[in-house]
């Protein structure tokens, strides 16, 4: 269980997060949505322990995040970052293995190798294991990073997985696949929190949605109750038509044309 209570975070006098409270249970996929600058990434970085909230507490499995050591935290949560620049031309296999670094001292065990093999297959990068990371396309690099992050917490029960725009440069096949993997992990008992931009992806996969605006929690609830045309207008200032997928009964949104009358 992850519980955030009245988190406030600010840089200088500008507050980026104000009084945000929510919790995530094992088995849940929570998607954070919000306009640019709403505080999504900042919230995620507070949850990961990278930033310390000015006020409020974040508890993971009954202990505050800041009371864990760096090493302990690495065994409980993994983070998929937005920026993934690697400064040396490591091979794909080497990068995925780094996800197992917290688990072994000098030599990877049989289990480590097996997990790496499993996540490599799952993310569809088995055929590029020996390739040099910098030669991959942006989307391929993102899948490699996903594999590394999955490898880190693959065998940890109820681990926390934080993802900051994990599908940003992926094509539609891997967007779906990445979210399907996230959903599957949640089913296995993980707590998955992901920042997304695509509302339809969120509607399709999220168990719960957190809508942020100006650093505040605006709405928190299931996709069906939160994602309405009215709320989207409130958050993003766009008009949209809402349809229901007849097969899954989930909503999807088609934004209406924007008319620029000021030009």
């Amino acid at each position: 269980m992850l519980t955030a209570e009245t988190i406030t975070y600010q840089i200088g006098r500008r507050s980026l997060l104000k009084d945000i409270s929510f919790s995530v249970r094992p088995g849940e996929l929570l998607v954070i949505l919000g306009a640019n600058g709403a505080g999504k990434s900042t919230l995620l970085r507070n949850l990961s322990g990278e930033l310390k909230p000015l006020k409020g507490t974040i508890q993971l499995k009954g202990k505050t995040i800041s009371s864990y050591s760096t090493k302990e935290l690495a065994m409980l949560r993994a983070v998929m970052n937005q920026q993934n620049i690697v400064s040396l031309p490591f091979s794909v296999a080497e990068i995925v293995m780094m996800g197992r670094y917290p688990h072994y001292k000098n030599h990877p065990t049989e289990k480590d190798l097996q997990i790496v093999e499993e996540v490599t297959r799952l993310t569809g990068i088995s055929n590029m294991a020996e390739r040099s990371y910098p030669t991959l396309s942006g989307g391929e690099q993102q899948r490699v990073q996903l594999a590394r992050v999955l490898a880190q917490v693959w065998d940890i029960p109820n681990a926390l997985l934080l993802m900051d725009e994990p599908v940003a440069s992926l094509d539609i096949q891997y967007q779906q696949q990445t979210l399907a993997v996230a959903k599957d992990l949640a089913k296995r008992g993980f707590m998955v929190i992901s920042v997304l931009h695509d509302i339809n992806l969120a509607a399709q996969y999220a168990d719960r949605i957190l809508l942020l605006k100006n650093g505040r929690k605006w709405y928190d609830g299931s996709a069906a109750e939160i994602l309405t045309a009215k709320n989207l207008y409130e958050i993003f200032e766009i008009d949209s038509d809402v349809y229901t997928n007849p097969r899954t009964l989930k909503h999807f949104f088609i934004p209406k044309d924007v008319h620029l009358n000021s030009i």
Partner: protein
Amino acid sequence: MVRKRLFLYVFLVAALFIAAAFSMSLGAVKIPVREIFLILGKKAGLFTQYTVSERFEGVLHIVRIPRVLLGLLVGAALGISGTAIQGIFRNPLAEPSLIGISAGASLMAVIIIVMEISLFAGLSNLLGYYLLAFGAFAGAGLAALLVYQISRTEGKSNVATMLLAGIAINALAGALTGLITFAADDQQLRNITFWMLGSLAGATWETVLSILPFILIPLALLPRMGKALNTFALGEVPASQLGLKVNSVKRNIVILATMAVGASVAVSGIIGFVGLLVPHTIRLVIGVDHKHVLPASALLGALMLTLADLLCRTLIAPVELPIGVITALLGTPLFLYILIKDKKKFAL
């Protein structure tokens, strides 16, 4: 890859022995390699039935062995610290000289040489060398600390600022060194110039012993930092997400690298390009995993410096070239070649 690595290790160790044997054999007095083995064997209590030339034994003991040992130590130190610094700075072009470590060390050493502190009678006793080595280490450490502090914001150090601060420290130390040389007399000036270009000519048992701890400690500890340096390549935030205590690891690695470079600069001056060239060459052969690049860099650094020293002693004998000239002459073309060939890969 595993076979390639094994082959490289075997090759480096074998080449190191051969190069060391040749270096002990060649010079103003040529000593047959067979004789070297006998003399070394006798020291170890073997081959007692053979008699060896006392003259050869003297030359070997007083001149050649310390010189070869110094080359091995300084080379290994420059090679491994180059790799470590490049890893920390996440920049394949970073080198100890780039972030002001060498400049700081040289500045302190120049100050000590010119001031001729009374203990320090003509660079002859072990205490004097310890003083010089320690002064250079202090200078290197001070420069590193200064760069490190300047580049820290919000409890983290920014690599770009660190590199820029390094440039500033280099310029400052260079200017101060230049200023101090005005106060030097002719003999001191010759010492300083020769030593600024780098040379192993000062090799004695004292110099070897004085730098031994400063180099053996980093050589023993840095290879354990392989995993840490690998995760650094992902960035400092991802490294910490993988459980690395980024700031303390960074500090430890910088201290160890500073120690090795400072000691090397103290006894052999600024020998450029070894710390830059060695890691690149190793990476081209066995890939970038620091677990192997670190020990292999120490071996290749030692080999490269031993060979370079052999060349500079014998090329235009009896005159001796400064070793820094040789390493730069050998190093720059290869370095430029790597640069052009891998421009994209290194994303310069």
